[in-house]
């Protein structure tokens, strides 16, 4: 009952062509996604991660297996009421304004009329879309579309938020903004499941990850556990002279340790980009 999503032995086959050839998209997948964490579902294109999310959301039926969301069968509307979803490359009715879209989604999600205005403004504020909310969606940039998509996904205050490729096609500034929204959700105690192949970003925002390949789960665990090499250590040293380096090497050797590489620390290109274009938004 502590799982936000429980997937047991999920298999999904698609029938293709007139002869109905079987294509197995997900193969006996079992996952337990804990509550209150940011969970990354990773894998190359066509590995079955989007199909898994669609089955979880009841948009596609499972060939075999059982799925529950927050303890309830995933296909029920009760489960969907507690879930928010941002699809990959979201497309919304262009003639609606951002505020109208979020309001429309809040109404469909069952937000009470008395709470509607506050819920819509909260969601727009969280996605930093208040200023552009009065504009038609047709005038939005890609980053703004993702942000308004995020707002519609969280407007009904769901316990579980599922994001399919939330930063695909978004520039690093927009991407960082979406990362902040994800962290804000986790700080509120929500569970966020995101599906991506942008590994750098997943590493920054996720607590746990699962890696899929050809429909199967190949690795699952906490990000720290799966990435750390416990037998290696990194030290960052300031003002190291050749004499200091020789002394350090000798001291370590005396204890049976050995320096295998010494490099200069680098910042990532993404960090540099964000630093240079700080404050610029894609509004």
């Amino acid at each position, binding site marked *: 009952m502590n799982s936000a999503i429980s997937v047991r032995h999920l298999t999904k086959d698609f029938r293709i062509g007139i002869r109905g050839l079987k294509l197995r998209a997900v193969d006996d997948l079992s996952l337990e996604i804990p509550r209150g964490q940011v969970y990354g579902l990773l894998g190359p294109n066509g590995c079955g991660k989007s199909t898994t999310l669609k089955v979880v959301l009841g*948009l596609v039926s499972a060939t075999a297996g059982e799925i529950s969301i927050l303890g309830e069968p995933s296909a029920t509307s009760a489960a969907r*009421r507690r879930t928010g979803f941002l*699809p990959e490359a979201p*497309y919304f009715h262009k003639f609606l304004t951002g505020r109208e879209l979020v309001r429309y989604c809040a*109404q469909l999600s069952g937000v009470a009329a008395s709470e509607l205005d506050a819920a819509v403004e909260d969601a727009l504020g969280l996605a930093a879309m208040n200023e552009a909310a009065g504009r038609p969606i047709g005038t939005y940039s890609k980053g703004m579309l993702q942000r308004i*998509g995020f707002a*519609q996904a969280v407007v009904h205050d769901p316990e579980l938020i599922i994001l399919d490729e939330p930063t695909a096609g978004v520039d690093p500034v927009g991407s960082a903004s979406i990362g902040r929204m994800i962290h804000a959700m986790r700080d509120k105690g929500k569970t966020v499941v995101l599906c991506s192949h942008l590994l750098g970003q997943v590493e920054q925002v996720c607590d746990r990850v699962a890696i899929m390949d050809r429909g199967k789960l190949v690795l699952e665990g906490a990000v720290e556990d799966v990435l750390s090499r416990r037998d290696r250590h990194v030290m960052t040293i300031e003002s190291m002279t050749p004499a200091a380096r020789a002394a350090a090497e000798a001291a370590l050797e005396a204890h049976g340790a050995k320096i295998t590489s010494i490099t200069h620390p680098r910042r990532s290109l993404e960090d540099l980009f964000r630093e240079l274009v700080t404050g610029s938004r894609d509004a």
Partner: protein
Amino acid sequence: MKDSLRRTLWISRVTFLEAVRQRFFAFLLVLSAAMVLSSVSLRVFDFGHGELKFIADFGFGGMFFFGSVLAVVMTAQLFFSEIDNKTALTLLAKPLSRPEFLLGKFFGAWAVLGVFVLVLASLQGVVLWAREQELVAAAEQAGRIPTTFSVVGLCQLVLLQWLRLGVVIAIVLAISSLARTFLFTVVVGSLAVVAGQLQWIAQDAFLRPTDSPVYAAFLWVSTRLIPNLQQFNLADALVLGSSVVEEGALISVGFSGLAYLVAYLTLGSLIFRRREI
């Protein structure tokens, strides 16, 4: 139940807004309106049937034809735009059931067709009234009995046409829920409308005795599966009073239309429930 109706209403509202913004809707509305208005200048070609009848036939003919085209193409377009653009993914991931989604689409499209029929019928009414005034004055001078038209009959016809287009929308939605492409839906939907217009032929054939049980079974299935869309074309009788229409007959046509509408929507919902998006 209340929540379900509310969700259906929200879907239909957005569907309506989307549809009335389409250029296709505006184009067909203008074309049909032009046809109604042009009937006045073309009345010299009345083939001896009387001017009002010609004006009514020409105008209502445009309404029937373009209304059917609009019902088939627009409904298919509204359905497939949601599927192809993946807005359906966002909506159906919410606590919105698939029958609610389909019903929302239906009522949105039906409301648009309601506007279409109402605008054209109003225009048709004005054209008939204007010509009727001239004909009445001329008949009084000549000492003849003037030809008139019935406003009540026109209102009844508007309701019947709206119901007929509702049946077409329901059929197209049932096809859409099964079909994979917009083109397939439009082609099959159009064929269904043509079959509905010709259904009376199968009905006549069914009433005639036959030795072939297969042929009889085929006719029995056809006459029940395909609605008789001709039964809604009562313009002459209702508007021009060329024959008497009993109230019971009108109610029977209304119930028949509603029964087909509900049956096709139910079928569409059952198919759409299993569709993978």
